[in-house]
């Protein structure tokens, strides 16, 4: 099913023409209206006339998260203030957040793009979407809300938390789709099990969209099995309108990135050098349609690769592989680099492991992984626990090449987030 069939099935050469036209327009606009970009372009010795085709993009300088933060609150605005209708900010735990502005047309476009994503996963106006993300400055909940509304679904804007009430809403309004964080999805599964509610019989949920936190294929499989649903991977970031930048279709094999909206590049996260198609590196995005706040070559810090092969669904928009890590989340322990997701991937594949975990880094590069037990796998013997500990130690060591200390803890004893989970605690002082 398609939402904007003519764009989703555009021929490759037509898409390219559209991209070129939009890129030139975007570059001209920021040159004209954003002093930050005029200065940056000047330093790099390029102007809008340098952009003849999309291949010329790599001559332009990058925009980093730090640039956006430094331009707070409105240094990157490309439209008069009277023309912007919304501002969102993205998490700034220290210092300034990143402020992202939208014009009326930006919001319209974002809603249509989100509607494409939802329709692509088989959702229709018959569906009931319970939106369990935080409504507010964070883009996630609102952009999903607009997309679902555009499709014509009934939306239950429940926000997160208050699980007992969430379940009542699911029953009373016959919810068929959930939107929530992966850690909350696992918590919900646990909660239903404890209450003796069988989601397959007692509820009608068929699709779950999870986002806002990194998670692995193993976690997706667990959520699907526990709730009896299809989970679709989605990708987005506040700087690029929030969720819906890229989404899986029914094939569940890579995420279609909407190339009429964003130009994508993959670069070496260290050097910034563009990498050939198919190689893994940092995703860099340029907005093609944004009026209020276009961003040129924005460093997402997310690690992925382009899957160049055509998708059986017929959409021309190329797919990216699920995000394998954030360049900023990378940990270095005893000189070895790895991503927290690699540890999660191991944990979620081992029987006896419960639903939550924590990674602890301490002085002298000591890596400890706290793992909740699965209550149903406990047989009352210390030997079984020892064996589990050893299995995890070995499997994690094989995956990341660092030997961890495994601490087994009671189910439910680690902090459960109904928002973003804090999985890594780094107590090292360097």
């Amino acid at each position: 099913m398609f939402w904007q069939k003519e764009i989703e099935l555009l021929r490759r050469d037509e898409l390219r023409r559209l991209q070129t036209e939009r890129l030139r327009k975007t570059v001209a606009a920021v040159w004209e209206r954003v002093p930050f970009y005029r200065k940056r372009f000047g330093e790099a010795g390029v102007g809008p006339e340098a952009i003849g085709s999309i291949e010329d993009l790599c001559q332009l300088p990058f925009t980093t998260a730090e640039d956006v933060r430094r331009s707070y609150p409105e240094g990157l605005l490309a439209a008069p203030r009277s023309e912007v209708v919304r501002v969102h900010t993205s998490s700034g735990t220290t210092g300034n957040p990143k402020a992202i502005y939208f014009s009326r047309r930006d919001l319209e476009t974002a809603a249509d793009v989100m509607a494409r994503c939802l329709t692509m996963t088989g959702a229709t106006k018959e569906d009931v979407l319970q939106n369990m993300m935080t409504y507010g400055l964070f883009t996630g909940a609102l952009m999903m809300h607009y997309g679902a509304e555009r499709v014509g679904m009934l939306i239950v804007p429940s926000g997160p938390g208050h699980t007992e009430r969430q379940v009542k809403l699911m029953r009373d309004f016959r919810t068929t789709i959930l939107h929530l964080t992966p850690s909350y999805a696992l918590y919900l599964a646990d909660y239903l099990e404890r209450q003796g509610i069988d989601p397959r019989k007692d509820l009608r949920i068929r699709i779950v969209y999870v986002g806002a936190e990194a998670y692995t294929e193993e976690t997706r499989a667990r959520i699907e099995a526990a709730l009896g649903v299809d989970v679709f991977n989605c990708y987005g970031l506040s700087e690029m309108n929030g969720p819906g930048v890229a989404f899986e279709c029914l094939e569940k094999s890579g995420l279609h990135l909407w190339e009429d909206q964003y130009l994508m590049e993959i670069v070496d996260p260290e050097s910034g050098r563009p990498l050939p198609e198919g190689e893994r590196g940092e995703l860099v995005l340029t907005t093609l349609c944004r009026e209020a706040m276009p961003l040129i070559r924005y460093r997402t810090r997310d690690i992925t690769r382009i899957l160049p092969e055509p998708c059986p669904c017929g959409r021309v928009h190329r797919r990216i592989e699920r995000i394998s890590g954030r360049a900023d989340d990378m940990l270095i322990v005893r000189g070895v680099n790895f991503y927290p997701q690699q540890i999660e991937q191991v944990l979620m594949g081992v029987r006896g492991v419960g639903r939550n975990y924590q990674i602890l880094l301490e002085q002298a590069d000591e890596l400890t992984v706290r793992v909740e037990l699965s209550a149903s796998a406990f047989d009352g013997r210390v030997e079984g626990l020892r064996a589990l500990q050893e299995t995890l130690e070995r499997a994690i060591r094989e995956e990341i090449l660092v030997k961890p200390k495994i601490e087994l803890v009671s189910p439910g004893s680690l902090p459960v987030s109904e928002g973003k989970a804090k999985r890594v605690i780094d107590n090292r002082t360097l």
Partner: protein
Amino acid sequence: MNPTKLVAVFAENHTGRLARCAGILAESGVNIHWLGIAGVNGFGVIRFLVDKTDLAYRVLKSRGFTCSLPEILAVEMADEPGSLHFLTSKLAEAGVNLKNCSGFVFNGRAIILIETDQLEAARRVVREQDLHELSEEELLSL
């Protein structure tokens, strides 16, 4: 004969874990007849023999403890040198591998509590050697 079961509780090695467990059992009027703790680095398993097994399991679980009810075999031996050697040799001959064991002498009666994955085989050995298996009631009335 009802199978004899222990209440096994997973516990992180934190100060006060046993006290909390015992407190919950006390509140529910559960009497503890025997207790063993197996601890390894960082965590342990506390095992109780109690008069109201199912109640103990329920209340501990509802208070967030991870529990299970492993079955044991309680066997009485003669209180004299060589009895343990005799029983364990017979079990070994039958290929029974013991997991957890504990023993005590009470009022002149020597009792061994056996946990194994091969409970039926162990029970057969006990019967063949004409040793006495204690029922749960008997064990609790010692």
